[in-house]
């Protein structure tokens, strides 16, 4: 089987898109926090400047038509209370300069009761200016008095730097949290896919039932096409197995007739050449009919495996029956068939399949062992279940082909001239595995084949 071509990863793509989104959001958060901080810092500075300018404005008294401004000490000292700041002020009566820094520009647009602000550079440093005005009565009528107060920005810059660090922290924290969430989301999104993969790959080789576990709606098309596909596969498999079984069945009866006729003719014939030819023919017919039988067996096994029944099986009794049934054949071949140990063990499963498997094994042993050899069957209880061991003193398995022997239609090198289909070990293996057990094939140290079936305890 070839590995599928990999292109991209849904999880990685999901993770990357989530992270990119989080990064953009984190940057946005950083700038929003910073801009809010800038606004707040600016507003608080404006408030202080307004308070300062207002207190100067309120200290102005009209005194005999002259304007007298008694600059309050706090008006300027308050500007320096949090951080060291340079401070500037100017007092104008309309266009007439009264006191302070004559060059300090006023913030345009100040009205009585509503201050105006501007940011500019003054005496070599960035400053923020607040201007306030009110009308006063002088000997020249009502005129407006305007006070501007300015302050450098070192405190504001410190505040902003602090906020900037905080904003950076918030952004980074936000991003880290999003990263964690993105990882979790990506994982949980992919999980149903993993679950489906696991449930499909956990299945036995013959399990073609449709997937019944609930899946998310996005995966429904995939799962239904998978189910349809498996259904088609199942049907096609069943059809071909049916076809094989049917064919085997139909071939067996004519073969039996052909064999009987050939035997009769052989017995009546006088020509030794014809006798030999008929003997070869009978052998070939035997071979074909045995294959057909095993194909039928296999079809039966496959069918029963799909609908495995579960009964208590007494392994000792079952083994004993199978051995007794094979005894006539062993006597015919002069092989010593023996059961050494028969422990009383019980197994859950299909007794007919088990019989079939054991029969196949015994059949193989009797078939390949030469006359005079012995076959030994033992059923033993093990700590974790039961073990059936069949060994003979025949030629043994050809060592180089041990792993491939249980495959369908594979026969050992030494099987030439012996009637067989190569399906025997396949059937045994399928039955044992359907019961949760495993089959070991090997050779005895002293020669001869050895097959051991291990079953877990019921």
């Amino acid at each position, binding site marked *: 089987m070839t590995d599928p071509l990999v292109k991209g990863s849904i999880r990685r793509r999901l993770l990357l898109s989530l992270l990119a989104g989080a990064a953009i959001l984190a940057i946005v958060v950083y700038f929003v926090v910073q801009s809010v901080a800038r606004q707040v810092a600016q507003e608080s500075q404006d408030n202080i400047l307004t308070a300062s300018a207002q207190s100067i404005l309120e200290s102005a008294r009209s005194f005999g038509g002259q304007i007298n401004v008694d600059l309050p000490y706090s008006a300027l000292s308050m500007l320096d209370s949090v951080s060291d700041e340079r401070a500037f002020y100017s007092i104008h009566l309309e266009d007439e300069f009264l006191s302070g820094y004559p060059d300090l520009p006023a913030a345009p647009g100040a009205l009585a009761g509503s201050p105006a602000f501007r940011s500019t550079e003054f005496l*070599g440093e960035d400053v923020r200016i607040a201007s306030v005005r009110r009308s006063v009565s002088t000997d020249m009528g009502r005129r407006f008095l305007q006070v501007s107060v300015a302050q450098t920005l070192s405190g504001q810059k410190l505040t902003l730097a602090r906020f900037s660090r905080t904003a950076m922290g918030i952004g980074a924290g936000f991003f880290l949290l999003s990263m964690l969430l993105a990882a979790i989301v990506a994982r949980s999104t992919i999980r149903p896919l993993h679950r489906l993969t696991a449930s499909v790959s956990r299945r036995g080789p013959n399990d073609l039932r449709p997937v019944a576990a609930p899946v998310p709606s996005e995966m429904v098309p995939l799962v239904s096409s998978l189910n349809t596909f498996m259904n088609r596969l199942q049907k096609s498999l069943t059809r071909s197995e049916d076809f094989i079984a049917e064919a085997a069945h139909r071939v067996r009866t004519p073969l039996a007739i052909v064999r009987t006729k050939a035997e009769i003719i052989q017995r009546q014939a006088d020509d030794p050449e014809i006798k030999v030819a008929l003997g070869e023919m009978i052998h070939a017919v035997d071979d074909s009919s045995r294959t057909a039988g095993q194909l039928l067996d296999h079809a039966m096994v496959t069918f029963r495996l799909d609908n495995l029944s579960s009964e208590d099986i007494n392994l000792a009794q079952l083994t004993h029956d199978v051995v007794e049934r094979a005894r006539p054949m062993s006597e015919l071949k002069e092989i010593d068939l023996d059961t050494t140990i028969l422990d009383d063990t019980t197994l859950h499963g299909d007794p007919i399949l088990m019989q079939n498997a054991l029969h196949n094994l015994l059949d193989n042993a009797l078939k390949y062992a030469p006359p005079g050899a012995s076959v030994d069957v033992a059923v033993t209880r093990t700590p974790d279940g039961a073990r059936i061991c069949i060994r003979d003193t025949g030629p043994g398995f050809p060592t180089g082909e041990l792993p491939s022997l249980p495959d369908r239609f594979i026969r050992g090198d030494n099987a030439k001239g012996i009637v067989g289909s190569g399906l025997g070990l396949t059937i045994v293996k399928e039955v044992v595995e359907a019961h949760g057990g495993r089959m070991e094939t090997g050779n005895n140290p002293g020669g001869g084949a050895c097959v051991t079936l291990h079953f877990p305890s019921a």
Partner: protein
Amino acid sequence: MRNLALSLSLICLAELVLAFETEDRARFGPDNAEQALKVISTADIGFFEPMITSFLASHPDIAIDYIVASSAELMRAIRDEGHSFDVAISSAMDLQTKLANDGKAQRHSSAVSRSLPGWAVWNDMLFAFTQEPAAIVVSKDAFGDMAIPESRHELISLLRQEPERFRGRVGTYDVRTSGLGYLFATQDTRASETYWRLTEVFGGLETRLYCCSSDMIEAVKSGELLIAYNVLGSYVANRSDRSEFEIVLPSDFTTVMLRTAMIPHNAPSPELSGVFVDHLLDRSHGPDAQPLTHPVIDLNDIEPSVNRIRIGPGLLVFLDQLKKRAFLSEWESAILQK
């Protein structure tokens, strides 16, 4: 051509007229020094000399040109005439603040300046290196066994009890001519209303007005004055005959002036200026300090009543021309009682 010559000569004349007045000048260090620091200061040479000596001891290849001028002249030299100095030192905190605030100082930050207490630095431009209280100075001889007033209230009651004894024998700053006197007076009014009552009492006693602390101290020594108010305590303490005087730090509040140094904006070699300022600060602050003022005045003893003048734009308020005019007219009407 003749016009040009005339204008040139006029410019030269103007230069001469505009040149600020110096009171004293001295040069320290080797004559052939490659670098010379030009320091303008309001402190007498004698007062400041220990600092220069210690600096030259650790920097033998530098010479110092020390120029003494009044605080007003110092201001004029830097702000109006644009002379360049490496370091400017003044006791007039308000004028120093004004210079710094108006951008005539450059910022300086070093390990030493960063280790200073908050009150001793402003905006990395002004650095305080002394704390000098305004004291009431009394002649011990003249007072004899009379109780020496410990606060402004006691001083007021003493003067009221015996007006004839003190008439014409009390002295204080003429705030119209003395920048330091004006600073002390304005800070006193901020701290308490007592100052105005005291000034009224001074006015009734034909108080004598002086330009400077040293003149008042001399007048007390000569017996001309019995009491001098708002005298720089450090000047008395640094004298060898200080035992003749009683230096009273008023227990209600003691105004403390900080002598400050700054590096003018046009200082020719700011790094060197920084080295000098750091030396000044290092020697004046901290547990191992050897301040210029005599240790006989220990502010730690009277810490609760210390009213240290805060460097900052608040000091600009009393420099405001309207404010100053109003203050001086009120002061004049109180002390001259015309």
